[in-house]
């Protein structure tokens, strides 16, 4: 299998719905918590080590062939915000569509049928990576990077932030993305042996609270 499949899956233009989600950045911008690139960096760093770590571990475990149904339930337990569960399943369903069109496979069809309204996005991402011939670390990299690139591009639109500054934030976070991926892949290996309880459960209270507030706004630019 081709390593370049990783570039296809990780490409921000991969048509899987991510462009309509801010990863909590819209709520943080409105709350005055992100006003420039420093705030964006602090936001992304926190998201990476919490939601990003959990997502990356779920994706890595799915890429290793762990039962998607068990992983999906574990994602539910680690996503107490209803608004975030809804967003994750919506994105999972959109990613499933894109992945099935890109890498047709029985394995994806089976998960699509099990979750007609969408499995959690990181679980679908891991299965997609698997059928694309990629490994657990590739899946974890996609997921961890998405956890920061999504908010960064949303903040470029929300604050008219200089896109070079936003890209600089992502570059500065790269060593931490490496570490989070390492931890995620290690946890995924433990899941294979000991079950989904070995998944990390790092939580970010402001993301959870902000997501519920955002979902109740009558007018917003992003779906989450």
């Amino acid at each position, binding site marked *: 299998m081709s390593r370049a499949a990783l570039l296809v899956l990780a490409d921000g233009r991969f048509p899987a719905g991510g462009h309509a989600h801010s990863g909590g950045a819209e709520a943080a911008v409105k709350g005055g918590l992100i006003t420039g690139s420093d705030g964006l960096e602090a936001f992304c760093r926190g998201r990476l080590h919490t939601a990003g770590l959990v997502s990356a571990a779920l994706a890595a475990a799915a890429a290793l062939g762990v039962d998607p149904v068990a992983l999906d339930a574990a994602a539910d337990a680690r996503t107490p915000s209803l608004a975030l569960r809804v967003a994750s399943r919506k994105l999972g369903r959109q990613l499933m569509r894109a992945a099935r069109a890109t890498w047709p496979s029985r394995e994806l069809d*089976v998960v699509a049928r099990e979750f007609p309204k969408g499995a959690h996005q990181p679980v679908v991402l891991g299965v997609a990576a698997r059928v694309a011939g990629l490994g657990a670390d590739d899946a974890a990299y996609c997921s961890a990077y998405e956890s920061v690139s999504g908010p960064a591009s949303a903040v470029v639109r929300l604050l008219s932030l200089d896109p070079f500054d936003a890209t600089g934030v992502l570059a500065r976070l790269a060593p931490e993305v490496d570490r989070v991926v390492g931890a995620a892949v290690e946890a995924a290996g433990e899941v294979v042996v000991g079950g989904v309880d070995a998944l990390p459960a790092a939580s970010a209270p402001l993301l959870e609270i902000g997501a519920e507030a955002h979902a109740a706004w009558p007018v917003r630019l992003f779906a989450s």
Partner: protein
Amino acid sequence: MHLGHDHSHGWPSAVSADAHRPDGTRRALRIGLGGPVGSGKTATVAALCRALRDELSLAVVTNDIYTREDAEFLLREAVLPPERITAVETGACPHTAIRDDISANLEAVEDLEDEVGPLALILVESGGDNLTATFSKGLVDAQIFVIDVAGGDDIPRKGGPGVTTADLLVVNKTDLAPYVGSDLARMAADAKTQRAELPVVFQSLRSEAGVAEVAAWVREKLAAWTA
């Protein structure tokens, strides 16, 4: 889970440009309506719903810049029951949602067919965007581009993918032409140059004819789709 199951029946379809639903029936015709902000897309959708709702089963998907505003206009106007109107959120990029990444819109049209179907027609309205925004062929079967006389009578001459390639070009608010100094004959000639044989409709929703010509075009498309 049934790994040995035959692929062609009962599985959700992967690619939605397929003309058939998972159960083998023909899906609804999907018509996109795009065009610049304020050109009258939502008003045209509302008028089409009123003109067609008694003769066929239809639903609407809106793509708002700000969430749900167009959907809420349609709800207030009560042109369709609320369960037949769905809003897609576009993350400040409505053209992305109808062209580059159509996944959310595909989910919306499929959910409408599942939940209120069977449907003959789904109108997909784009958020007000620029002249370059067009619908992906993976999302709609035909598209209408709506401009208006108040936006400047040089828009047809300037062209752009919407004006040039849309299956139907609607020049709206013709009643305003005298007030904004727009030359309808010039707009028609420019449109003809840009579009060759592709049709153009000049309409005023405030006139007696209203949306009738566009509705007739939709009926034609529908007849061809179901033939």
